[in-house]
């Protein structure tokens, strides 16, 4: 990905008096975190490939307030939400896609009560849709003979009962999909949620991400797939802790698909 990405903003669309098909909510991690930015770019590449007329808010986007809410700061959450809703409503946004299950859950479920109702989908759901409508096809079969295991992000899986979209999308590759013993509704958390990403864990016997990585290693994977920037960080750290980074990579579903384009 050496070529400069074209990423139109809502402000630009507005200036031309146009509406995009969908708003891409990049999220804080996707905007600033080095690892997550790669996911963002892979997804944008995918959107271009499928000729999706999309836009981002750019500098007008602000944290959803999700993390503030999970740690108990309802004030900060609602301030962020009201601010974001004002901008989203101002642009007349109808449909939103995001690579972050936390933003997905928050905007989809918690914004409506504060005046922001949109059709919000997770990027794995959108990629699935792009495949189904024939806008996206895989050209290269890079994953033949590879074993992929998918780790369910809590806020996509249990929180919103979306277990199939990421698996359907991964099923488009010729990789072998394996399941961890606990998956879908019984999947173990990666350890990042509820604000844990931003603090040291409480005293205990081990870190959650290591336990979850052990689950994944038991399936003997080449790739651990995720659909969340925080899970990605946690699992990547877990793989490093287990000194397996030479043989196992952690990738987002969007990255896996983008590689096959």
């Amino acid at each position, binding site marked *: *990905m050496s070529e*400069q*990405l074209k*990423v139109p*903003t809502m402000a630009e669309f507005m200036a031309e008096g146009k509406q995009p098909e969908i708003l891409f909510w*990049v999220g*804080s991690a996707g*905007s*600033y975190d080095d690892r997550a*930015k790669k996911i*963002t770019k892979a997804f944008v590449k995918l959107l271009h490939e499928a000729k999706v007329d999309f836009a*981002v808010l750019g*500098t007008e*986007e*602000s*944290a959803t*307030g999700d*993390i*503030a*809410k*999970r*740690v*108990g*700061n*309802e*004030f*900060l959450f*609602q*301030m*962020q939400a*009201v601010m974001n809703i004002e901008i989203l409503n101002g642009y007349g946004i109808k449909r939103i896609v995001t690579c972050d299950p936390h933003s997905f*859950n928050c905007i989809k*479920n*918690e914004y409506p*009560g*504060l005046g922001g109702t949109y059709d919000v989908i997770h990027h794995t759901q959108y990629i699935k849709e792009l495949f189904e409508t024939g806008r996206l096809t895989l050209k290269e079969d890079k994953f033949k003979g590879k074993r992929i295991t998918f780790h369910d992000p*809590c*806020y996509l899986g*249990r*929180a*919103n009962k979306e277990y199939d979209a990421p698996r359907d999308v991964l099923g488009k590759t010729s990789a072998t999909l394996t399941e961890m013993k606990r998956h879908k509704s*019984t999947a*173990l*958390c990666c*350890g*990042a*949620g*509820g*604000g844990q990403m*931003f*603090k*040291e*864990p*409480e*005293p*205990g*016997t*081990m870190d*959650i991400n290591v*336990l979850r990585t052990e689950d994944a290693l038991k399936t003997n994977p080449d790739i651990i797939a995720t659909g969340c920037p925080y899970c990605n960080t946690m699992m990547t750290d877990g793989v490093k802790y287990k000194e397996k980074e030479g043989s196992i990579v952690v990738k987002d579903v969007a990255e896996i698909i983008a590689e096959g384009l």
Partner: protein
Amino acid sequence: MDFIPNILFAIALIIGGGYFAKNVKSLIRNIKLGRDQEIKDNKSERWKNTINIALGQSKMVKRPIAGFLHIVVYVGFIIINIEVLEIIIDGLFGTHRIGLSILPVSVYGFLIASFEILAVGVLVSVIAFWIRRNIIKLKRFLSAEMKGWPKSDGNIILYFEVVLMCLFLIMNATDSSFQALDSGNVISQFIAPLFSGLSEATLHVVERTAWWLHILGILVFLNYLYFSKHLHILLAFPNVYYGKLTPQGQFTNNEAVTKEVKLMMDPTADPFAAPAEADANAVPEKFGASDVQDLSWLNLLNAYTCTECGRCTSECPANQTGKKLSPRKIMMDTRDRLTEVGNNIDANKGTFVPDGKQLLNDYITKEELWACTSCNACVEACPVSIDPLNIIMEMRRYLVMEESAAPTELNYMMSNIENNGAPWPYNQQDRLNWAQEN
């Protein structure tokens, strides 16, 4: 003097029933100590859940062995109680096996036969449960919160069941007129020979004793519930009915906060305006929960319903990695504190006298609360639709909004969001820089 047993029976029934009614009243009063929360939506979905999850035990069988054993005990419990109906009528009117004079012998025999078979099923399952708790020592029954009373409680109930079932079978076995019918005594006919040496009169005494102990045992059991995790056999139904229907990831938005935020964001509002006259004496709403009264009534109903099965804790990522947090303990602490508050009210003629204690710190520590990843595994695992996460979140809200007592790193993260719209200290103006980077 033939009517003396009838009178004694009526007295026992009135005392047992009266105490039970009193317990139910305290229970309802205690649950109502919680904050209001209106739940009137989606009646049909709620009934569906009640039938599937509470009555049908659909979540119990996610763990097949325990689920199957539990269903046997549960079905046995409900069905054998039909027999209690007969016992009550017989006891009050001095009849003997009134069912026989209403139903054809074959039907009556069929009923009793199924009760006897179920009684054996219950016995076997209860013994299996006892072995799981005391010999195999399943991990989830050994956690810190399961020491002392909760451990005894679990066993007491099993002993109760064994005794009640044995009494039921002995009562049938020593009832010579019933044995003579030779209909329905599928199990008791094999127990009868044990008593074959006894005279008719002694046999009758044994039969009467078993009969009396059986019904008295049931009355005691009924009143034991209030002090036991076995309250779930009643409360599971309303608890599942009122359980959360929205996506598990959706947390409620605090309305008091919404009001204040709207006011702050409203450019036409005068920030220095004096509060309206009527509000002058109003107690400012407390954000979040530091004690049971700050929780919703549903949280409190949850606490009383908890079966202490520990399925939540065994799925909890924090607990599995040795952190102090155990969602089961959250529920047990909430219930224990609520009982304490209830007793306080009883002792002080109906008003709560502050006792210098609260749910936070005295029962649930900050360390437990901050270990939660909000992953919902506990909520998903609970067979009776309890939401421990909701209580954790309410208590975090109190810690953060009332006491500013979040861990330092989280405060740092929050001030980043406040200042630059991201949990990290990056400039808001750089939010789209990724698009330019290669």
